[in-house]
């Protein structure tokens, strides 16, 4: 026996990216825009979706709901009479903390792609892993709730840099918090200069119109964002 060095130089996430590209091709062929929707657990993703998708004139929305376990979120969204497909990640070892391209691929046959224009993939609540794994999306959106603190962009820069839009949620709670909204916005800009931000309250509805407008814009066939 002897030892040989084999030069490789390959991105270890190439396998995932290849599957993501295949997903993207399937979605493009069906004319469906895909948004990867990410945040920490409890930041308000499902409520922001309920608020937005109930009133998106001219846009047929479907949701792919990623959770480690359970279908609570999917049940909430299905009550809006839109197609919802649940994807649980607990089949894997320990329950994956994010969706990857392969999991999304496995869900494609269950998705009514010819009946929707916009597919929103609600990722597993997590500020780290989802940022690493492309799923074949056109655009990525994250929710950053003010209750999480001003420092989160500095602690999780990968996530804040991985998205085209940051929804700053729960601003109705600002009077009760020792949080400086300007400082949070400053930190977001520091980590991802000029990233688009919408300040919202899923509870009061403030800013939700701008969030709906953004979704309508990306869902428009000609206006699909080129997010790589």
């Amino acid at each position, binding site marked *: *026996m*002897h*030892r*040989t*060095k*084999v*030069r*490789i*130089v*390959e*991105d*270890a*996430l*190439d*396998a*995932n990216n290849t599957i993501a590209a295949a997903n993207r091709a399937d979605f493009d062929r069906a004319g469906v825009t895909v948004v990867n929707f990410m945040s920490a657990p409890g930041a308000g993703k499902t409520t922001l979706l309920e608020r937005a998708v109930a009133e998106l004139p001219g846009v047929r929305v479907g949701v792919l709901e990623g959770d480690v376990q359970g279908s609570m979120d999917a049940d909430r969204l299905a009550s809006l009479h839109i197609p919802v497909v649940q994807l649980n990640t607990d089949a894997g070892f*320990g329950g*994956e*903390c*994010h969706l*990857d391209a392969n999991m999304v691929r496995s869900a494609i046959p269950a998705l009514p792609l010819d009946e929707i224009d916009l597919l929103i993939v609600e990722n597993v609540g*997590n500020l*780290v*892993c989802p940022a*690493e*794994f492309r799923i074949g999306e056109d655009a990525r959106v994250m929710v950053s709730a003010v209750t999480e603190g001003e420092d989160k*962009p*500095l602690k*999780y*820069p*990968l996530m804040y*840099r991985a998205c085209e839009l940051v929804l700053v949620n729960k601003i109705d709670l600002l009077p009760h918090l020792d949080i400086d909204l300007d400082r949070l916005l400053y930190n977001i*800009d*520091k*980590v*991802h*200069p*000029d990233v688009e931000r919408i300040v919202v309250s899923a509870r009061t509805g403030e800013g939700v119109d701008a969030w709906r407008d953004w979704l309508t814009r990306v869902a428009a066939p000609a206006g699909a964002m080129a997010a790589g």
Partner: protein
Amino acid sequence: MHELSLSSAIVNTVAKHAAGRRVTVVNLRVGRLRQVVPDTLEFYFEFVARDSVCEGARLEQELIPARLHCRSCDHEWEIEIPAFRCPVCAGSDVAIASGEEFEVESIQVEEAECIAQR
């Protein structure tokens, strides 16, 4: 916590190139911006490598500094904290010159002598 998934990605990438040969060393290039904790990655790698060609292999991690390049004023600098605006012109058109790597650079494999001899 993403080190577990990243470890699986490394083992799968290596297995593809090892072609069944036992792997003794995996040389990995990791950019500082990947937020990888080296000790945690090593821990999970050893775990995920079990029952694969990587079982018992040593994971060598080369940490690549995060360097940015401002397209507006051509300034290039290294960052220690996540601040992506240009410190010279305050511009936002900033490219990442290095620091996003997560690649298997090379591996060391064991080969039977008869295969290596011509």
